[in-house]
């Protein structure tokens, strides 16, 4: 899969058999003053459509950095990354925004709901960013909220909801645009055991029902027990990436 020439990397070219995510020799450096932090040090990874993957490893191993790159909200320092057949580096900022809106759903550890919007309005947001009509956005958002069991909370603002309910709204929001990929950064970290169990079950159900690819970063053993594939990171390198369950 890795294509190299003597003098360096050969850029990824679009192929019909491409995986949903293709990463080739990805490096990511951060500059803290004069110090260079090598967050990722040569990642090669393929993720197929419909996978349910956990990225795990100790703190500072590069999990969040890797998810940021896969979510097209950050750029690698070197290496090639293709999402759904699109070479990320070649996309403009606007094109990347469109890619995120159309193909990627995000679930954050802190839920990241817009506090001035109700549950329904939060879920409608990605559709309205895309330019969907009010009626279409409302119908779809209501349907997604129903799927996550929050049809009675559509008018509630985030501050009137529990952590579990907020995370369910975030899941509905991540799914409302029918993305091919959902990225979740520590989605159960702020939740109690029972709520975490419900959230994990919900994500698993959506993965199985809709065939959406899920990629998590997590330390949560409850979640790790549920995934089909584990990618273990240490010091910015994949030390175990092929294990499938």
């Amino acid at each position, binding site marked *: 899969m890795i294509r190299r020439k003597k003098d360096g990397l050969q850029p990824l070219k679009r192929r019909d058999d491409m995986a949903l995510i293709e990463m080739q020799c990805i490096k990511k450096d951060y500059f803290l003053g004069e110090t260079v932090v090598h967050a990722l040090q040569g990642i090669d990874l393929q993720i197929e459509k419909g996978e349910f993957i956990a990225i795990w490893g100790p703190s500072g191993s590069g999990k969040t950095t890797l998810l*940021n790159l896969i*979510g097209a*909200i*950050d750029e690698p320092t070197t290496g090639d990354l293709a999402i759904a057949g699109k070479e990320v580096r070649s996309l403009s*900022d*606007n094109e990347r*925004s*469109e890619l*995120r*809106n*159309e193909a990627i759903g*995000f679930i*954050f550890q*802190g839920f*990241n709901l*817009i*506090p*001035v*919007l109700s549950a329904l309005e939060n879920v409608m*947001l*990605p559709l*309205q*960013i*895309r330019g969907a009509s*009010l009626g279409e956005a409302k119908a779809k958002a209501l349907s997604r909220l129903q799927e996550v069991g929050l049809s009675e909370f559509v008018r509630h603002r985030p501050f009137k909801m529990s952590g579990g309910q907020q995370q369910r709204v975030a899941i509905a*929001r991540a799914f409302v645009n029918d993305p091919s990929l959902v990225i979740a950064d520590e989605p159960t970290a702020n939740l109690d055991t029972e709520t975490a169990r419900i959230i994990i079950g919900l994500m698993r159900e959506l993965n199985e029902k809709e065939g959406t690819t899920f990629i998590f970063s997590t330390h949560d053993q409850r979640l790790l027990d549920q995934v089909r594939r584990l990618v273990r990171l240490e010091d910015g390198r994949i030390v175990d990436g092929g294990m499938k369950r």
Partner: protein
Amino acid sequence: MIKWMTLAIRNILRNKRRSFVTLLAIGVGFTAISLFRGYTSNMYWGLRESAIRGEGLGHLTIYKAGWLEKGKLDPERYMFSRAEVDKITKLVTEEKEVILATPQIQVTGIVSNGITSTIFIAQGVVPQDDRTIKGAWADFRPVKGGGLNEKKPYGVEVTQDLARYLNLTPGKDGVVMTTTLSGQMNAMDIQVMGVYDSGSDATNDKYMRFTSDFAQSLLDTKMAERIVVLLNSWESTEKIRALLLTKLTHAGIACEMKTWNELSLFYSKVRGMFDMIFMFLFSIVLVIVVMSTVNTMGMAVLERTREIGTLRALGLKRRGVSLLFAMEGGVLGLFGSFIGVVLHVSVWAIIRASSPTYTPPGISTPVPLVVDLVPQALVVLMLCLIFLSLFAAIIPARRAAKQNVVDALGHV
């Protein structure tokens, strides 16, 4: 669009105290400008009416070509003959915007009560035409006594301070003396028909009004110095000037024309001064509005950095983030202007109810303090402040849009 507007309004209401202070700053600024604009609007109206009707300048004054430069040196050469007056009057009054055209002549000399003498400046006018020019202004500054009368050509009107110096009251007699156009001394008896207030300290002790026939007799001439034209509306002054100049030139009449504001130096200077004050005030308010909005929106960007990151992650483009914050600035301007309108109408109603008066410098009597309610000006000012707030918000909005998504999401 409505969705984003709703989001903008809710975001503004998020920090109520800060938004309220900004709205109040915009509202008070709006009120200061609009009240001053309403005050100057009324003052300009008063000064305009005072010049056109009070001073009797009409809207346009026609002189024979060369009068303004050399008329005082050789008056007869640069005055209109009776035939010319008739011809001009006929041509001018053909225009439907023209109410009347009337000849006038100025006389300067000495007026005496038989014991004391002092200088005077008098306008010789056609009494009937003068009444038309005065119109409703006559009610504002009424003439004590009967006023000018065609049937009594030697009857004159005297300004109030001049009348007081010479102890001239309506019905009393006096003498006026001047040199005729040919340079001979001439004196004639007068009878005071009326005493009036010119409105200005500078002229209240020397102005008089004669009938045109009397002024011509005193100067020993049948000619007229100028022809004053009264129009339906002051707004058409420039248009009619151009039209009449062309028309009279084609008719072979060499003339020059001045508008009421060119002749009323007082109006021009006061207007210039108040326009300057208005610009000064507007600039101060502009700075306050811009700084308040930039501060509020800057704080909002800082507080909502994580939210901006979330919106960007969900696919909102940089332009969308800019637009959202700019819209919030615009909404601040809109609501601030609404507060301003409410304050303006409240102050306007209080002033209207209490009818305060004041005496401006150089003016002989107190005048009412009136603030006009000018809806057109309020709308323009409102649009002005909305766009100003919107543009002021663009600076922090652009900063928000340029933020790195990862950094924004990690902001605490």
